[in-house]
């Protein structure tokens, strides 16, 4: 018993890391192995048809990891090149997407958090605004796109609007929920110390509700990053969503898979960033 524990006296994190690497190696290995170019014609010359079809099977196969890693290296070593409208570096495309997401997201935060505060503080505001929220919230953000394009008449701004509209709801509802749930004891502390309403809001209610608000912000940034890809596929021009769709049109599956992975990595980084902020405002009761 003691021996086994000492033998396995490696931290959980290290063991989890080893397991993750093993799983990755297994997955990549299988993928690579199953995707080897088929050995055709008994190793002889390729027929004309086979040459035309790039030496492939009758069904096209997904590119192997090795090809994707080569593409990743190419793209990441020169991320900011700009060779015309349909040929920009991955960094530029990501930059456009991030710009749209962050603009729409912070605009939403600017509106959602104060209104959420109001709704949380005032039962009247809650009852009056709740029906609107309940109707507007389930609408897929992309459904707004035609209306946005018609009214705003600008593809870029419309994409930002779609991000705005999809990130507003989790922040609004979480802020309202957090503010309404602030313990009466803490509000009483503010009252017995004669704090002005503004000071009460900033010194007591905001810090008390901050973890809940941050949870809403974290959900929102996740949704915004999901939606931007679809939105850019629709509006076209620039951005990582457009890039994916463009490479699909080019039948460049290697680039498609590479950008899918990149979307995942950037989404994770956005979430980590907000997670770090959430840690700053967290408190233990």
């Amino acid at each position, binding site marked *: 018993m003691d021996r086994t524990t000492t033998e396995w006296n490696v931290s959980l994190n290290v063991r989890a890391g080893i397991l993750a690497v093993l799983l990755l190696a297994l997955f990549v290995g299988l993928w690579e192995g199953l995707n080897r170019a088929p050995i055709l014609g008994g190793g002889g010359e390729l027929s004309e048809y086979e040459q035309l079809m790039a030496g492939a099977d009758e069904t096209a196969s997904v590119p192997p990891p090795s090809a994707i890693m080569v593409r990743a290296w190419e793209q990441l070593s020169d991320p900011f090149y700009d060779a015309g409208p349909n040929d920009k570096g991955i960094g530029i495309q990501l930059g456009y997407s991030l710009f749209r997401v962050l603009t729409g997201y912070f605009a939403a935060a600017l509106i959602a958090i104060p209104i959420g505060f109001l709704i949380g503080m005032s039962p009247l505001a809650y009852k009056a605004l709740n029906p609107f929220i309940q109707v507007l919230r389930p609408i897929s953000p992309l459904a707004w796109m035609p209306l946005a394009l018609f009214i705003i008449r600008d593809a870029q701004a419309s994409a930002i609007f779609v991000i705005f509209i999809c990130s507003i709801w989790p922040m609004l509802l979480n802020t309202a929920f957090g503010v309404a749930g602030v313990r009466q*004891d*803490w509000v*009483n*502390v503010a*009252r*017995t*110390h*004669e*704090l002005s309403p503004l000071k009460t809001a900033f*010194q*007591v209610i905001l*810090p*008390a509700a*901050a973890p809940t608000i941050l949870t809403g912000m974290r959900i929102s940034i996740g949704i915004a990053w999901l939606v931007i890809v679809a939105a850019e596929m629709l509006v076209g021009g620039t951005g990582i969503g457009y890039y994916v769709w463009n490479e699909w049109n080019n039948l460049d599956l290697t680039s498609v898979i590479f950008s899918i992975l990149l979307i995942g990595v950037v989404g994770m980084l956005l979430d980590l960033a907000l997670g770090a902020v959430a840690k700053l*405002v967290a*408190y*233990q*009761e």
Partner: protein
Amino acid sequence: MNHAFVEVQQAAKRFPGAKDGDDLTVFENVSFQLEKGEFVCIIGHSGCGKSTIMNALAGLDQFSDGAMVMEGKEIDGPGLERGVVFQNYSLLPWLSALENVRFGVRARWKEWSDAKVTEHSFEYLEMVGLKDVVDRKPAQLSGGMRQRVSIARAFATKPKLLLLDEPFGALDALTRGVIQDELIKIWTRDRQTVFMITHDVDEAILLADRIFLMTNGPEARIAEAVEIDLPRPRQRGEIVKHPHFYAIRNYLVDFLVNRSGELRTADLDRRGLHYPESVNPVGHASTDTPAAPDGKPADTGTSNDTLVAFTPKETHHG
């Protein structure tokens, strides 16, 4: 008429009943006075409205009827001249112990420099024995330490009236004793007027100048104001040896166990102003039946002349 420091007159709390016309009256016609610098405890069974009275004095709740005046001004809403220590500590969990005290001090003296606010806050934390843990968050403190922070916060703002809502209710007996000593120390220094709810008879005797005894709710009232004439400074270990101690204690326990349920507002003339009857349990044994309410307000301030020479006597039937 006699202007007391705090004056509560004919206060009542009613809640609308399920059927109309049948209001639930928690307490009725509660009047009392607090003198400046006095330490008053209020004892009564759950549901008699002690906390409502306290919250009303704090400005956090309202009476259905009656008036509260402090230093000639009506109490209307919370204010910094009245400090509150809540049973559940009510510390802000995202602030450290020092920041929690600073929160109160800063609210009290807006013009003070940061350094002065910190220095003043630190002084009070030191007084309750917490100078080594000032940077800890409430979650990292024990229940007793949290209540000390709460007491430091309340006393540091130097309110004229301190309201303590069962501050030691959630603490174990040992911790409670230590903090009671600290409370005495800090109160002896500043001599604020204190109004405190407690369920603990010994605690009340140790701390109070007078103890208000409430009858059971609904329709509760403050029946008596018991004078505690034990000499100060009092110490937990010494006080039980005082010849008056058990007379007082037995009287209080008898009230809570036997008489609190029998006395009801309904038995009294509801109209008119009644202050709780002033009682000195020492020597009270012979006249243990509460005097018939004759509408004459008991004089709360000058009880010394009614003091009977202390002969430790058997208290009345129990």
